[in-house]
């Protein structure tokens, strides 16, 4: 977890960025948010490949290019089953083949092959779904995006404070030594608070019976996503995945939980709502 001085920098960054995001969501055109999401997803993808393919600029570039193509395909073709199936067949199958041309050390080649198959999907798909949520849900679109972000980021914040003041029992030391069970519970409380705000304030069309369970599922997966990113970082020996967001580390550090909450909320709107 960040040191207190870092917390001030984090807050300052949030104070600048959050109003800009809200302005873009509620006042900008429906596709405007995608213009923000797309570069963020590409930087996040690049950070991921910098961890899985250290020093191999060519492979990193190929990975980001595949992610860009699939994000654009999904943005325009999410309602065309052929497009979705094609993306899901081509990327995981052909990605690993890139490693045949960029072999490097044979010990890590298998890991890198699978990273090239999965990596382009890992960030670009959920981030594109988040931008699609803005468009898909009509007049409620901006509020659905805000709720999804609250599930992730208020979960982070709740986890941070609960862990800092109440944290005793380690949650998963081998992966993330500072996270505690108390923090995880506080994180879920933060996500649920996001659901309450949504229902009572900015998204009245979602009922409590939907919002609260959704926030718990999304919040729990979000925290797992956070741990998942820590796992990749630890395993590849990186502290922060980047320095692009002052006080927040890289894009990937900021969106690790959001990837999962976006997927959960999008699937909720697709199957249940």
């Amino acid at each position: 977890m960040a040191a207190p001085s870092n917390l001030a920098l984090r807050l300052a960054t949030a104070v600048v960025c959050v109003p800009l995001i809200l302005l873009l969501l509620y006042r900008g055109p429906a596709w405007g948010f995608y213009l923000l999401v797309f570069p963020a997803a590409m930087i996040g993808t690049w950070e991921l490949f910098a961890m899985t393919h250290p020093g191999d600029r060519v492979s990193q570039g190929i990975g980001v290019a595949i992610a860009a193509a699939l994000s654009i395909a999904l943005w325009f073709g999410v309602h065309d089953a052929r497009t979705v199936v094609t993306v899901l067949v081509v990327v995981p199958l052909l990605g690993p083949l890139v490693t045949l041309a960029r072999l490097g050390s044979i010990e890590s080649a298998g890991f890198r092959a699978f990273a090239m198959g999965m990596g382009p999907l890992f960030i670009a798909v959920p981030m594109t779904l988040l931008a699609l949520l803005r468009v898909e849900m009509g007049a409620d679109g901006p509020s659905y995006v805000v709720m999804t972000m609250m599930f992730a980021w208020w979960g982070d914040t709740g986890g941070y404070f609960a862990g800092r003041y109440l944290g005793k029992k380690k949650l998963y030391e081998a992966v993330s030594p500072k996270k505690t069970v108390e923090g995880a519970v506080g994180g879920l409380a933060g996500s649920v608070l996001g659901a309450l705000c949504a229902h009572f304030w900015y998204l009245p069309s979602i009922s409590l019976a939907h919002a609260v369970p959704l926030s718990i599922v999304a919040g729990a997966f979000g925290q797992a996503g956070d741990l998942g990113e820590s796992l990749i970082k630890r395993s590849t020996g990186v502290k922060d995945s980047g320095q692009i967001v002052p006080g927040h580390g890289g894009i990937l550090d900021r969106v690790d939980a959001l990837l999962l909450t976006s997927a959960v909320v999008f699937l909720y709107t697709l199957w249940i709502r």
Partner: protein
Amino acid sequence: MVLVEARNLPSHVGIIMDGNGRWAQLRGQPRVAGHKEGAQAVRRIVRAARRLGLKALTLYAFSEQNWARPEEEVDALMVLLREFLLSERDEILDNGIRLNAIGNLGRLPSLVRAVLDPLRAESEDSDRMTLTLALSYGGREEIAAAARELAEEVRDGRIDPDDVTTERLRSRMPSLAVGDPDLVIRTGGERRISNFLLYGLAYAELHFADVLWPDFGAADLYEAIASYQVRERRFGHVGKPAPVALPHVPVASPVVASPIASALAASSAPITRIAI
């Protein structure tokens, strides 16, 4: 859970949205409450149709004969229609839906026209899905109007009486600008067409659902489409020969006995099902 095969979708689906009044009566509420709930169902179904990738959806919202209903119900319906158009404006424009309206639109009150006309104009170039609202619509009226148009052309000497063909008549029907309906659904349990899309119905598959319109959900739409997909459309031609029952052979034939063959047969039998 009903899944829909993605590669054999009907292109144009029409829906007769029946049962709002009964839905309200069953709950001891005024009919208007049923219409209000029905508007929610419209939102659900438009979204589901769009996500499925249908090219055209035509909703029978108000018939030419509905004007005979009590004045307060008609007024409430018009207000609801206006509210629907206002609240769905963003979703329609942002998702590439072209909004169209058919029927005797001149009879609609100005409070509806004031939102309907600009939205039609604004969404004119969208092409992902055409949402057509049949308002003050009647199928016979539409046929008569098309016939009248052709009669005028004959009178003016622009076409010959022999040129009055089914195709030319069809080209004068606004409801068929998006193609003939492939599937027409009626909710609410009645088995009638009630003057909807008469001319285009020639080869449409019909699906009757007992569920009242306010309760009609995405799953019911999927079920209707799935039932369409298993039917064989022949357009008046002769179909494939029906499978002939083979005489029972007591000795297990090697083809049937092979586990791989039977697994292959089992896997190729159902359709590839994708839900998007």
